[in-house]
């Protein structure tokens, strides 16, 4: 797999504040890497450096082998931003034609890319009359018109409804199949889990984890099972996989376990009348929060019906 983005030992600081500290990242053709982490982790600085908006102070950044600070290298880049601010008075086709000209793309590239993102019928419509989803597709058309080797998507689906988000990713899939690498930043972690081949977690400017979404989730083996039951805490300790047991003030049994299925079977066998069973399952969000030292959000909860499925 060809490397379209290589970030090696990048350091960057603002005054005495370290924004990036020895960051390494490699992205291959057709690969999607999600860059995740809390606010202030350094994601924006890294994206700015990769897109040539900022020159890295130390280390090496190469997009298809070139320095992104150089305009010529940026011909290999396509960028979708959260807010593009496209002039409202321009028409869809004019905007994409402008992007093609700025990127040095051939004249004939505009029509096919409008068709690719489903905007052919709206080519003469002014930007101000487009919906949020259509404006995002317009941004995608601007990013794709030069057939980029690397797409940088900075919060690309923020503010879109579920259907528009799905549509966005479906349209992008074909480009990935043709070899475009994707660097994605998003706060929609379910989306990152669905589309990213790998996740890189940044915290305090450092890469604290890099793995597949499933691999990151698997790093948190523990699940918390709780229920209103007469089952004795002392008995729960003897069940395989149990890590810790406690009883809440309201009598609720709370068990931390690496084998939630074994525990649930034992609880149901011992107390068929148990009530309000919950399994708190770590998803990607939980994993990212834990890995970045920001574990403050409530974990995802599964209902009894979900357990049964």
């Amino acid at each position: 797999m060809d490397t379209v983005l290589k970030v090696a030992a990048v350091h960057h600081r603002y005054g005495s504040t370290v924004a990036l500290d020895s960051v390494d990242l490699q992205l291959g053709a057709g690969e999607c890497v999600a860059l995740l982490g809390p606010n202030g982790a350094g994601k924006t600085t890294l994206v700015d450096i990769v897109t040539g908006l900022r020159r890295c102070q130390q280390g090496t950044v190469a997009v298809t082998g070139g320095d992104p600070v150089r305009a010529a290298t940026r011909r290999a880049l396509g960028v979708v931003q959260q807010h593009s601010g496209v002039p409202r008075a321009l028409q869809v086709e004019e905007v994409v034609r402008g992007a093609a000209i700025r990127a040095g793309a051939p004249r004939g590239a505009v029509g096919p890319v409008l068709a690719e993102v489903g905007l052919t019928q709206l080519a003469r419509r002014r930007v101000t009359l487009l919906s949020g989803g259509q404006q995002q597709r317009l941004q995608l058309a601007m990013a794709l018109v030069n057939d980029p080797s690397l797409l940088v998507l900075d919060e690309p689906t923020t503010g879109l409804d579920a259907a528009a988000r799905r549509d966005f990713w479906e349209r992008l899939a074909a480009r990935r199949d043709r070899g475009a690498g994707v660097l994605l930043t998003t706060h929609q972690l379910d989306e990152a889990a669905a589309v990213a081949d790998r996740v890189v977690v940044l915290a305090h400017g450092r890469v604290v984890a890099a793995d597949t979404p499933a691999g990151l989730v698997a790093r948190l083996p523990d699940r918390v099972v709780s229920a209103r039951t007469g089952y004795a805490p002392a008995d729960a300790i003897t069940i395989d996989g149990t890590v810790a047991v406690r009883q809440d003030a309201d009598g609720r049994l709370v068990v931390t376990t690496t084998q939630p299925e074994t525990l649930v079977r034992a609880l149901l066998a011992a107390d068929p009348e148990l009530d309000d069973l919950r399994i708190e399952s770590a998803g990607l969000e939980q994993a990212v929060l834990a890995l970045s030292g920001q574990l403050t959000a409530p974990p995802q909860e599964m209902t009894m019906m979900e357990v049964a499925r």
Partner: protein
Amino acid sequence: MTAPIAEPEARTTTGGTDWRTRRVLRNEVTEELRAVLREPTTLFFSAAMPVGFFALFVGLWGAETDGVTTVGTAMLATFGAFGVVGVCLLTPGIGIAEDRERGWLRVKRVSATPLPITLAAKVFAAVPHACAVLLAMTAISAVTGTLHLDTVSWIRLVAALVVGGLPFALLGIAVGFLASPNGATAVLMAVFIPSAVASGLWMPLEMLPAGVQQVAPWLPTYHLAQLALAQMDGRLGLEHAAALLAFAALAAGAATVAYRHAR
């Protein structure tokens, strides 16, 4: 330290890249003009106001003469300077501030086109806009019978005003990089209107207080108007051109510092 470069810079001097740069520049200028023409409310301060003032003042005093020519003809130079400075100062300056706030400038910066080309386009887009203002004033002057200027002198007048007005675009860009759209409008209007009045663009300097008359030669707007008046008399007005050149150097420096600060 950065990676080795695989491709040549876009602004090299090969024929292909020169052609591409011209294509980019032409597109950027066209985009600028389309945006202005399709949202004409932006033309109020930069076009409607100076042309309206010109029509009012020419209607009141345009037929009077100073012994050489009509006041209406001289007003084409002074109000023309007012109109051109308005276009050059406000349109690119407020445009940059709006592009920055909306994120459009960021889109341009991550593109394969060097940002200076985008900025140059903003300056060049002021040229047809300024010419339109001068044509409107000329038409009003002709209709009211106050225009007494041969074609060559008129062309010299327009050329002097348009070329001499471009340094004001650099000042507008400097403010646009530092202020919000509302802030840029306020700052630029605060510079524009007092400078215009104090330079004798609305009424003859002799009618203004002595203190203002002493300040006027230090203002670039004064030198632009004097350069334009010189073209009507067949003079070159080189001292005024030199003053505008010095102002252009200062404005370019301010624009460069503001651009780097905004990065």
